[in-house]
């Protein structure tokens, strides 16, 4: 900027002194104050969130399926990552995180000016993240856009065609995730209304969980569900995956401060506390009811805690985080084990039971435990006496649930009519790895 100003000074013969001062003044005002610490933290956070999907989520899911479907499950995480990256660059970021020039549309969907990221110059800065380059903010939000659809793979495991899966990921990203991200974070109606969602309790987890619920109902149960042995083929992979999710989640939650400041620090602390508490909550519930503290239970509880603290992480104090964590462990155990058994749907890896229920629970508890002393933009019910926040959180949950549920149903219906959703029974029996990808795991 200084260079451009001095060039203008050289050409000053053509301009009045007043114009020069005005030009320099406005140029300085528009100069983005890019902070190197914030930028470093946000590039790190973006990489951490990417680590959550590949290999974290991929391993978490792949360890839980049968051996014949392990590569197909990894392919879903990896394939989703690549397809969504490209779509985010082409149109996703534009419609989710840039303003719509038509003010009557802006509450619902962003604009189209950022197609192919064309206006994103080297020095560009988004008004939503004023201290880091827009390239970093776009990348950070891209990693959220990747993991959200990828989470749905847990519900459709073992039985969906890879071609249909990629169509589903693409359409769902653009028609469901991008609008909802805009509603809450991109300047849309839910954010304006006052919904508190720090890192994506509704935008990411309730959203993916609801889609998982719809897709598992529409696909139907796996062949042999309830009669054949569908035990996880290698829980060690799941433990590694869950641990990578836990570590990566600091980018997710603390990164959602979009700066390296006190809020990021408190969000990181809340995340760690809630996750451990939820792992214990699930473990002790299971120990009490099913008589053994399973490893799968511990890691499932940890993920449930990560999910539930996601919307709350930058708004609650450590005690709030502890309570949210314990609640998430117990409630998600009940929903994934007992409610699922009662209702009989085949949510293969519990995308609804953990992410849907945990996300909704976390969003509501955010309204209860948000503290103005922790985050000046929030006033919760129990600490600040703002009961109205509970209603706002409920509206947030209901809006995401209804829009996502209906939209996911329509998308899947269309894909089903055009190319079909499910593999043939022969392919399902023999395994997706060999039939869809021409590979198997040896050794």
């Amino acid at each position: 900027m200084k260079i451009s100003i001095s060039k203008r000074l050289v050409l000053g013969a053509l301009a009045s002194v007043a114009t020069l001062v005005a030009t320099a003044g406005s140029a300085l005002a528009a100069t983005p104050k890019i902070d190197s610490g914030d930028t470093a933290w946000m590039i790190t956070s973006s990489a951490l969130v990417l680590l959550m999907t590949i290999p974290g989520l991929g391993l978490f899911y792949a360890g839980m399926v049968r051996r014949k479907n392990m590569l197909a499950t990894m392919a879903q995480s990896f394939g989703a990552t690549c397809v969504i990256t490209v779509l985010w660059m082409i149109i996703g970021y534009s419609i989710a995180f840039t303003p719509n020039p038509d003010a009557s549309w802006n509450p619902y969907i962003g604009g189209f000016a950022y197609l192919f990221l064309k206006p994103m110059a080297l020095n560009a800065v988004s008004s939503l993240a004023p201290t880091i380059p827009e390239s970093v903010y776009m990348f950070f939000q891209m990693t959220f856009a990747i993991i959200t659809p990828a989470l749905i793979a847990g519900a459709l495991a073992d039985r969906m065609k890879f071609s249909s899966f990629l169509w589903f990921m693409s359409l769902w990203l653009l028609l469901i995730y991008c609008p909802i991200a805009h509603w809450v974070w991109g300047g849309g109606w839910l954010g304006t209304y006052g919904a508190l969602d720090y890192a994506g309790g509704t935008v990411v987890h309730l959203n993916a969980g609801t889609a998982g619920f719809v897709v598992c109902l529409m696909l139907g149960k796996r062949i042999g569900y309830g009669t054949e042995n569908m035990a996880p083929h290698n829980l060690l992979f799941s433990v590694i995956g869950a641990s990578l999710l836990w570590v990566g989640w600091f980018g997710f939650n603390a990164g959602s401060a979009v700066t390296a400041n006190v809020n990021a620090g408190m969000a990181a602390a809340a995340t760690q506390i809630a996750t451990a508490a939820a792992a214990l909550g699930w473990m002790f519930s299971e120990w009490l009811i099913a008589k053994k503290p399973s490893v799968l239970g511990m890691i499932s509880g940890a993920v449930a805690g990560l999910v539930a603290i996601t919307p709350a992480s930058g708004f609650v104090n450590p005690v709030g985080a502890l309570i949210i964590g314990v609640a998430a462990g117990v409630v998600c155990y009940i929903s994934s084990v007992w409610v699922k058994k009662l209702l009989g749907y085949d949510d293969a890896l519990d995308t609804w039971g953990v992410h849907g229920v945990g996300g909704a629970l976390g969003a509501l508890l955010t309204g209860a435990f948000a503290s103005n002393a922790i985050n000046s933009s929030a006033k919760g019910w129990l600490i600040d006496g703002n009961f109205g926040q509970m209603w706002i959180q409920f509206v947030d949950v209901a809006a995401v649930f209804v829009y996502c549920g209906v939209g996911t149903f329509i998308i899947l219906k269309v894909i089903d009519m055009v190319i079909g959703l499910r593999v043939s029974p022969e392919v399902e029996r023999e395994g997706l790895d060999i039939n869809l990808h021409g590979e198997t795991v040896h050794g």
Partner: protein
Amino acid sequence: MKLIMAIIKPFKLDEVRESLSALGVQGMTVTEVKGYGRQKGHTEIYRGAEYAVSFLPKLKIEVAVKAEMADAVIEAISSKAKTGQIGDGKIFVTQLAQVVRIRTGETDGDAL
């Protein structure tokens, strides 16, 4: 000549091998197998989904010996593999018609 095949608990392998070596048995084949007998299986539970595991992991050992050694070998296996608990395994003995050592072409007793 006799072929002695025994199904044993996996952790008993070393004791059995040592006792057979002491008897002068020159070789043994070991295979990891799964099966069931009188011993009940167990139940695995994953997020509430229960699976009965009825085939339990065992080891199958195979030893070919001269007929006069068979009783001593059977005695060694049954004493060393025994815990007294259900699931200790079984020993099967069959007549052995022919043995050939591939490297030298020796047959029967010379090949054992």
